[in-house]
């Protein structure tokens, strides 16, 4: 896959054609397919997206070695939050229900006591993912939004918010870890089953989801947390 750093003058269609991982990013920015020959910059301008921010996300996503230190200062916190919230919505409304259906189908096709347990495992996992995302959506992100508001209004202190990003950092556990268990079970331990490719489809989905979650966590750890720490220093 590509390990190039993408610039504003690259055609967005080229990026997507070369690396399908870029596909999941489009809806998070409200970008629709039918891209034509427009460059990243042109598409961003049309959609009112900050080009630097878009490129930062694309590069974090597609290039695992890319570490964004220089660009961090210019990231608009509200844009970042909206990106993260859109990602959550995609997981909850698209990815998880789809995986849930596939696993249910697998259970129905393969009659084995272990598939019942597998489904149970996955349902438990979904509950954990929902909790994880809900905590961010309901506690951590609103705090960051409030903080950014305060800064914009140039208030010198944070009124009545008993929270700091260190709490988030501490609580930030790896929700992708259990996906490894699922992968091992399906790749190594379930006996061969006549399931019409469902198992393969589940695995591909799991791997894509895992990759997505890892990148998502990288963005939170390497972009969100450092920025919020800077903001916190400004007002304290």
């Amino acid at each position, binding site marked *: 896959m590509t390990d190039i750093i993408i610039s504003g003058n690259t055609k967005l269609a080229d990026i997507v054609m070369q690396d399908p991982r870029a596909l999941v990013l489009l809806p998070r920015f409200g970008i629709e397919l039918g891209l034509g020959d427009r460059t990243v910059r042109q598409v961003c301008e049309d959609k009112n997206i900050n080009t630097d921010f878009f490129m930062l996300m694309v590069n974090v996503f597609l290039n695992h070695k890319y570490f964004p230190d220089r660009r961090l200062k210019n990231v608009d916190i509200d844009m970042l939050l909206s990106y993260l919230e859109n990602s959550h919505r995609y997981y909850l409304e698209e990815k998880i229900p789809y995986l849930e259906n596939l696993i249910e189908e697998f259970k129905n096709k393969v009659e084995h006591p*272990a598939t*019942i*347990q597998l489904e149970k*495992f996955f349902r*438990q996992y979904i509950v954990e993912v929902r909790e994880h995302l809900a905590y961010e959506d309901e506690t951590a992100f609103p705090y960051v939004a409030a903080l950014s508001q305060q800064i914009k209004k140039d208030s010198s202190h944070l009124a009545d918010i008993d929270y700091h990003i260190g709490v988030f950092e501490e609580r930030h556990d790896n929700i992708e870890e259990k996906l*490894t*268990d*699922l992968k*091992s079970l399906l790749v190594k331990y*379930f006996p061969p089953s006549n399931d019409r490719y469902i198992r393969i489809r589940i695995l591909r989905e799991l791997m894509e989801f895992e990759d997505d979650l890892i990148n998502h966590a990288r963005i939170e750890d390497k972009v969100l947390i450092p920025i919020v720490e800077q903001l916190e220093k400004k007002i304290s």
Partner: protein
Amino acid sequence: MARTLIIAEPSEIIRKGLVHISESLGLFSSIKEVACSSMLHETIKKHNPQMVLLNPSFVNADGLLELKDLTRTTMMIAGIIYSLYDDDIVSMFDEVIMVGDTRQKIHRKIGGLLEKTPGKNRSKPSEPLSARELDVLKLLVKGLSNKEISEKLFISPHTVISHRKNITQKLNIKSVAGLTVYAILNELISMDDVQ
């Protein structure tokens, strides 16, 4: 952990120089030299090194993969490059050491490569579980805590934890829920035990 480095390089000046620089790093318990490509396979098989610094003229691209197959554990290979070199060759290596690199730079590169070698925790991946590990697994998936398991099997909680670590490493499954599925698949427990 005993670590071995092999330096395979025809030029004596460069070879001795790399030996000297690697020794000063203090990370290897032994450093072997190979001056001629015909001795390469034999030396690697004999010493099972964690790392090889290799002059690319000793092998072609396929040969590099062959070398990796010679050892029981993962072996990192860094190319020794004199000047400009074909990108395709450079990309075959885990790291590239330029003859013009400073001592510090070479230290950093070798140190970085060593960190990438999977240590003892991945050296025995697919061994079957031991009888004791199976005992722990069965109780674990029935919902017992570490403490309860330790009382039942007359072992210390610390030992239970280390068994659990080994189980996770061998199976590549960490959560109790995942291990439960494994246990049912292998008929270690029945569905009634879990419900």
